[in-house]
């Protein structure tokens, strides 16, 4: 279970998160939406301890990670898998070495078992036979799929997705959405995605949190979010900008 209490984060004079509260039960598929630059990716990085908050607490299965040092966090991060916006594949390693990176480092899995698991996840993401390719040889969509394979190969309990469909064509984006849903169904993981792609949000989650002005503004099902008459939610969902010169959403 993930519990976030009064989380605050500023960069210089800019306050990005201003008291974020929410909790996510085990096995839930949640999407966090909000405008670009609104702090969604920062929130995701805070959840996995990549950056430290100015104030507030984050509990992962009852453990407060905001008070942990980097080495203690490494153990907690073993529960997480993360798909980065840019995929963040290690460009000096092959697809196979990228995917089995953690298993190889831990040294507890036999080479045959590693090869089997890499083959299994690459098949899941539709990239069987690409083990020996280098990341530079792959397209943007393929890189994201490899990133997804790397995030789930060691069976984490929680998977974080940072803008999983950004920069992809609609068909590639749809295939990533299908993969995320398949991962949730197959591995029964807690899934937290950050996106401003409303189509994707509706497809990959059963609960949507809207981040607005540094706080959780709405916590509803996708159906309720799409039907909402609230002006802030309505404008965001339907992509309606403020008239130029008026106050923006941010």
């Amino acid at each position, binding site marked *: 279970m993930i519990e976030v209490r009064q989380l605050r984060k500023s960069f210089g004079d800019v306050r990005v998160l201003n008291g974020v509260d929410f909790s996510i039960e085990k096995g839930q598929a949640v999407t966090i939406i909000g405008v670009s630059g609104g702090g969604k990716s920062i929130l995701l990085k805070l959840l*996995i301890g*990549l950056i430290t908050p100015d104030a507030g607490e984050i509990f992962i299965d009852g453990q407060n990670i905001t008070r942990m040092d*980097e*080495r203690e*966090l*490494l153990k907690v991060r073993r529960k997480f898998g*993360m798909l980065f916006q840019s995929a*963040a594949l*290690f460009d000096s390693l092959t697809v196979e070495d990228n995917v089995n*990176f953690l298993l190889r480092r831990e040294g507890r899995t036999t080479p045959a078992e590693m090869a089997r698991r890499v083959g299994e996840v690459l098949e899941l993401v539709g990239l069987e036979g690409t083990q020996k390719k280098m990341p530079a040889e792959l397209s943007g969509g393929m890189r994201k799929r490899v990133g997804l394979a790397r995030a789930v190969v060691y069976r984490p309990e929680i998977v974080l997705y940072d803008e999983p469909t950004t920069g992809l064509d609609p068909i590639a984006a749809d295939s990533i959405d299908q993969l995320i849903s398949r991962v949730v169904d197959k591995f029964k993981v807690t899934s937290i995605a950050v996106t401003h792609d409303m189509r994707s949000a509706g497809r990959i989650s059963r609960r949507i949190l809207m981040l607005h002005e540094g706080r959780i503004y709405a916590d509803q099902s996708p159906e309720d979010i799409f039907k909402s008459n609230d002006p802030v939610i309505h404008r965001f969902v339907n992509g309606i900008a403020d008239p130029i010169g008026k106050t923006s959403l941010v």
Partner: protein
Amino acid sequence: MTSLAKQLARDWFGGLGRGTLLCRDIAVSLMKVKPVWRDVVYQMYFIGVKSQMVVIITGMFTGMVLCAQTYFQFHRVKMESATLAVVSVAMGSELGPVLTGLMVAGRVGAAIAAQIGTMKVTEQIDALRTLAAHPVDYLVVPRFLAMVLTMPLLTAESIALGIGAAYLVASFLLGINQADAWHQMVRHTDDLDILRGMIKTFIFGLIIAVVSCYKGLTCNQGAVGVGLATTEAVVYSSITILITNFFLTMFLNTLLQ
């Protein structure tokens, strides 16, 4: 002006503090985490084998020019036979370690800062951390170990080649009596001269590894950030080597007499 000075002082002390924390993390990693020797060996190959051309040329031509210049001066006072002794002491305790340090800082320090810096700006270091790997264990320690193990070997090679090349120049170009020059060299070169050089080069290796990894890990976003980190890694490593060399010379000459 005052605010600029304050900002510079804050940046300088901030950098010093972060560098010290990196040294602490390296020490903790060395004590608690078993290094991946495959990575260390690869880095030794990258630092040692790939630097051969640079080290050979630097060592040989420095020895040759030092020999020629010493001969031109000593010839006036009929002391030609002491030429190789000067070359050997200078190469062993000063020029060998310092020039190898500067060349390795330029070639390897720049590469380390660029590799780690690129990983930082492309989120690969964040990806490492999400995969439960500490960047210091995975990226810094193998380079650190490889550097402190390889630098003494490279320096020894540079000193040997420098003296060898100087011997050839002295014998075949300058016409110095070979037996006399060799005898004087062996007589005036102390084991401690070489030991001082080896201690220095070990410390220079440590400086290059820490400064270059630090610059890569703290690199700013974008191509400009990586470029700046690379330049600063070379400049700061080189300056630190030159300054440290003076203090080490004074300290080691007092300590090892």
